[in-house]
């Protein structure tokens, strides 16, 4: 993927999130969101390393992954607004956005749950003779969920082509990673025999390079790899946080974090003209997305439990 493509992705995610936050404030989006602002390089870089047959799983902070994987911004925004045209027909919302046609097996709101789902999917694809790799994203908080550690064991034991991408933004809600993780994050993966690396999660090119190596290795049958991406969440844990006025990060810390902005880092690799062109293009895409979402119908309350079962006798 080219420099400009990576920039387009991080810029798209950033502006999508900024608009989504506005829609939370205006009440168009009910229930709030977990903004991905500041972490865009990870989704952009990791998804750029994948082919169309590959699959991903995501988290409660999932918009970036879903967009980077190529989901339609209009349908994602419609999903956040609970519209019938949304990716999940308005049945999933922010924390469950999925697009199976693009290998997006769903954002998952249970911390640490999706790693084992991605592992099973990757195993199944290999059994079906497909050359698929799965990438599963999760935060530093998930490193303390036993289910995820169990998945590391299965993946390593059975050499499953799954790449564990830990987005270490320093906090699980308000809990600092240093107060939560005994030992080291990569040490936990290494204990299962999984090669694990810590990389700069603010630079899309760095993430792309590391993920490409992991993907190549996984496709060649050598099994899982673990990437700890050091990043920073610029905004609140959740859009409710402003109301709660949680105090857990110093202004100095936030300023230092925000100074390494993936959109700026990637944008600096483009000429001003190229950048402006992409920025305009992104705004046009998001204008259209907004118009599409706002103009879409709400689901019929009579269909509230539609899709609960594939078949109900």
């Amino acid at each position, binding site marked *: 993927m080219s420099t400009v493509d990576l920039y387009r992705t991080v810029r798209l995610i950033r502006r999508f999130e900024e608009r989504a936050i506005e829609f939370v404030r205006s009440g168009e989006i009910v229930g709030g969101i977990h903004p991905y602002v500041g972490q865009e390089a990870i989704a952009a870089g990791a998804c750029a390393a994948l082919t169309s047959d590959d699959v991903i799983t995501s988290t409660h902070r999932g918009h970036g992954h879903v967009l980077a994987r190529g989901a339609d911004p209009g349908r994602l925004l419609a999903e956040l607004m609970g519209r019938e045209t949304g990716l999940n027909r308005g*049945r999933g919302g922010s924390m469950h956005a999925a697009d199976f046609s693009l290998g997006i097996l769903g954002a998952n709101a249970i911390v640490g749950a999706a790693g084992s789902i991605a592992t099973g999917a990757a195993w*199944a694809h290999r059994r079906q003779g497909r050359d698929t790799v799965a990438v599963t994203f999760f935060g530093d908080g998930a490193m303390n969920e036993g289910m995820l550690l169990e998945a590391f064991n299965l993946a390593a034991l059975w050499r499953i082509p799954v790449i564990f991408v830990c987005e270490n933004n320093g906090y699980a809600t308000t809990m600092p990673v240093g107060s939560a993780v005994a030992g080291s994050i990569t040490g936990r993966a290494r204990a299962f025999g999984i090669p694990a690396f810590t990389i700069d999660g603010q630079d899309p090119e760095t993430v792309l390079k590391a993920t490409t190596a992991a993907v190549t290795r996984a496709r060649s049958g050598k099994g899982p790899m673990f990437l700890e991406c050091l990043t920073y969440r610029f905004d609140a844990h959740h859009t409710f946080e402003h109301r709660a006025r949680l105090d857990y990060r110093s202004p100095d810390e936030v300023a230092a974090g925000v100074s390494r902005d993936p959109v700026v880092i990637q944008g600096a690799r483009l000429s001003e003209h190229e950048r402006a062109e992409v920025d305009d293009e992104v705004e046009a895409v998001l204008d259209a997305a907004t118009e599409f979402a706002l103009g879409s119908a709400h689901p019929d309350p009579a269909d509230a439990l539609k*899709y609960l079962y*594939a078949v109900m006798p």
Partner: protein
Amino acid sequence: MPKLSYLKAMNRALADSLDTDPSVFLLGEDIRVAASNLTAGLLSRFGPDRVLDTPLSEQAFTNFATGAALAGMRPVIEFQIPSLLFLVFEQLANQAHKFSLMTGGQCKVPVTYVVTGSGSRTGWAGQHSDHPYTLLAHVGIKTVVPATPTDAYGLLVSAIRDDDPVVFFAPSAALGVRDDVDFSTLGPVPLGTGRLARSGRDVTVVALGHLVHDALAVADELAGHGISVEVFDPRTVYPLDLDGLAASVAKTRRLVVIDDSNRTSGFAAEILAVAAERFTLDAPPRRVTRPDGAVLPFALALDRAIQPDRDQLVAAINAVLEDR
């Protein structure tokens, strides 16, 4: 006619399913050596790619199965201890069951969870003796509790073919039940269809799993006293065969439920609620259950004291027939 045991019938259902559908595979703890006997012979016949021994990682391998199902496979997990379902309640109730709705119908999760030896296993005490089918039904997961080898075969085949998650409870006290079976007549039994295990005129006894056999024994005994008991076996706890139940109760107008799960919010409570909403009864219905919040104590006499038994059933039947 050849005799078929309940456990052998399940084994046969697995073998037939593996044989006819390459997307079916089995996973679980110690299933290659068939520790519970359920999977006996399947490793040598189908190989290690389709009969997977898993490490002791219930949460991960249950979600692993969901992931494999999302990718087009039909996993069958064996849980050899009923209480392990408590460990994976998140993966069943919160993941597998919810995927279809939450994604707006983009996917299906055809996983079957087989609990081999549910309920009291005689002397296995508190953490090995639950029979938690009501919990799954409450969540809305398709739940079956067959009573006979023929139904065990037919419902397991249907569960595996079904496109949704299905939990299959094989009660420990039913595993040894044997039927005279003409193998050529074995076939799928549709989920959600009940079975009249015995027809009668005076009272409908609703029973599930091993308790169907107790109900039949009680019906035999009471027949000698001039009481005609009908035994209705719903076979599937969720969805429930309401029409079958209604037809039986319309005939007898009296109802007793025997249910080997806890009383409050249990399966029996549900049947009584359905009766209150829909049926005209000639006497208040009764239920025979485990006590509220029950935990099975170890000592045999205590273990037995907690489970619903034939004497309690006789007493309940007599009570609903009192003002006949």
